[in-house]
């Protein structure tokens, strides 16, 4: 199944080059590289159909998992494993670290993990130097690893080859709406925040400004292991322009905490969820 689709893609991309129709190359760019495993259909997608030299663009690892199965965030929580992508890129192209959309908390008995059910796009920001203009096409190679779990966990991986033509203008790809949807879920804005700790608890105070009055629910996801008890209830209250969130400390409660990093999910009264970056210093 995998080799056949790969073959089709290769043939299609040759035909595209031969015919030289830009409309066809958009579709080929979006549809290449499908890896089908027992528990996932994985593909690389981009928001651009052609790469403009000297610009940045998104490439996403699109994972469609077996229904109700899940994969993990940067900090997987009590168990599990973060995905990994190893890039082999052409000269002039550089990849950033994986940018993770907001996860959600998956509770199982007394344990909790952070991840994504059913489907996710793990994003990587690519920067193309002006020098890539000398190339007709960029070949992005990646080896990706992900753990997919329900009651049991299966490690899976895939080898990807993704071809993107170079052009004077960055034309949008058919996957752009999908990418945009997940980019919108990547926490970008950093909120002013401070934390304090007691023996057992951690309190995070975040300035939300006028939005504070509109908050329905908040949840803090720490980047590092052991900072909070992952399965513990997070309580919070409004205090003027601020929200104060309190949660039990995690396994590293005996260690000094110089800074607290993570993301804050804020759900407003209409049910819209937004993610914010937290880089808090002690109060």
């Amino acid at each position, binding site marked *: 199944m995998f080799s056949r689709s790969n073959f089709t893609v290769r043939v299609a991309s040759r035909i595209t080059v031969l015919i030289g129709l830009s409309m066809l190359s958009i579709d080929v760019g979006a549809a290449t590289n499908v890896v089908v495993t027992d528990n996932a259909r994985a593909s690389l997608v981009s928001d651009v159909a052609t790469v403009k030299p000297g610009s940045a663009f998104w490439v996403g690892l699109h994972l469609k998992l077996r229904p109700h199965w899940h994969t993990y965030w940067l900090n997987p929580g*009590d168990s599990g494993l*973060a995905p990994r992508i190893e890039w082999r890129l052409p000269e002039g192209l550089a990849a950033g670290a994986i940018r993770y959309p907001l996860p959600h908390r998956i509770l*199982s008995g*007394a*344990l909790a993990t952070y991840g994504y059910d059913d489907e996710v796009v793990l994003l990587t920001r690519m920067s193309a130097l002006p020098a890539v203009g000398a190339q007709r096409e960029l070949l992005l190679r990646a080896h990706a690893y992900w753990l997919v*779990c329900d009651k*049991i*966990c299966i490690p899976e991986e895939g080898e990807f080859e993704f071809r993107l033509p170079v052009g004077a203008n960055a034309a949008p790809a058919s996957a752009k709406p999908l990418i945009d949807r997940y980019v919108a879920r990547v926490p970008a804005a950093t909120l002013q925040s401070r934390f304090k700790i007691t023996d057992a608890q951690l309190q995070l105070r975040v300035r939300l400004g006028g939005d504070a009055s509109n908050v329905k629910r908040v949840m803090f996801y720490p980047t590092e292991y052991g900072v909070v008890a992952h399965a513990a209830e997070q309580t919070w209250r409004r205090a003027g322009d601020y929200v104060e969130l309190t949660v039990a400390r995690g396994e*590293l409660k005996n260690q000094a905490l110089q800074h607290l990093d993570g993301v804050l999910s804020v759900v407003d009264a209409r049910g819209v969820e937004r993610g914010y970056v937290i880089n808090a210093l002690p109060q």
Partner: protein
Amino acid sequence: MIKIRSRFNVRLHVWAASCLLSLVAVSLANASPDIGKAAPEFSTPDSNGTVQALSQYRGKYVVLEWTNNDCPFVRKHYGSGNMQTLQKEETGKGVVWLTVVSSAPGAQGYVDAAGANALTRERNAAPSAVLLDPKGAVGKLYEAKTTPHMFIIDPKGTLIYKGGIDDKPSTNPQDIPGATNYIRVALNEATAGKAVSNPVTRPYGCSVKYSD
């Protein structure tokens, strides 16, 4: 004749195991598995029908290893021989190594006594004993979250380490040679009279398949 005897043996073991299960002791005074404090006491049957109590090993270092033989993270360390090597190395120095199975019946990794012994033979493993914990009592006492999840108790009965087997969270055996094995490091430090430099680390692996 042999059949009758083996059936009798099985019955005896089942009877012994059910009696022993009721003996699983939970010491509420030490209910939290905190570094530098007394490790939670337990008393639970092993795969040979012998009761294993933590307190009987005062004077020795004890390693607790949570396992689930079908978990890919456990397979990484057994398929490569890494776990067996460590077990042989440490038990050879007098360390007591207790492998614990807390998978509930029907869940991944659950084994009965015979199954546990067969796994030890097949994998050429060298634990001092394999503890059968199908109700998860010992697992919950230690708040064991993953397989593997490792704990070290010093000769005074104090918990000196809890966390991962090493510092390379993955299912890939090729990561083992470049990893720092936290158990080896902690036991070397402790036996040299030093404090354990990393007493709490991230345990990585599958979730322990508790009954609830």
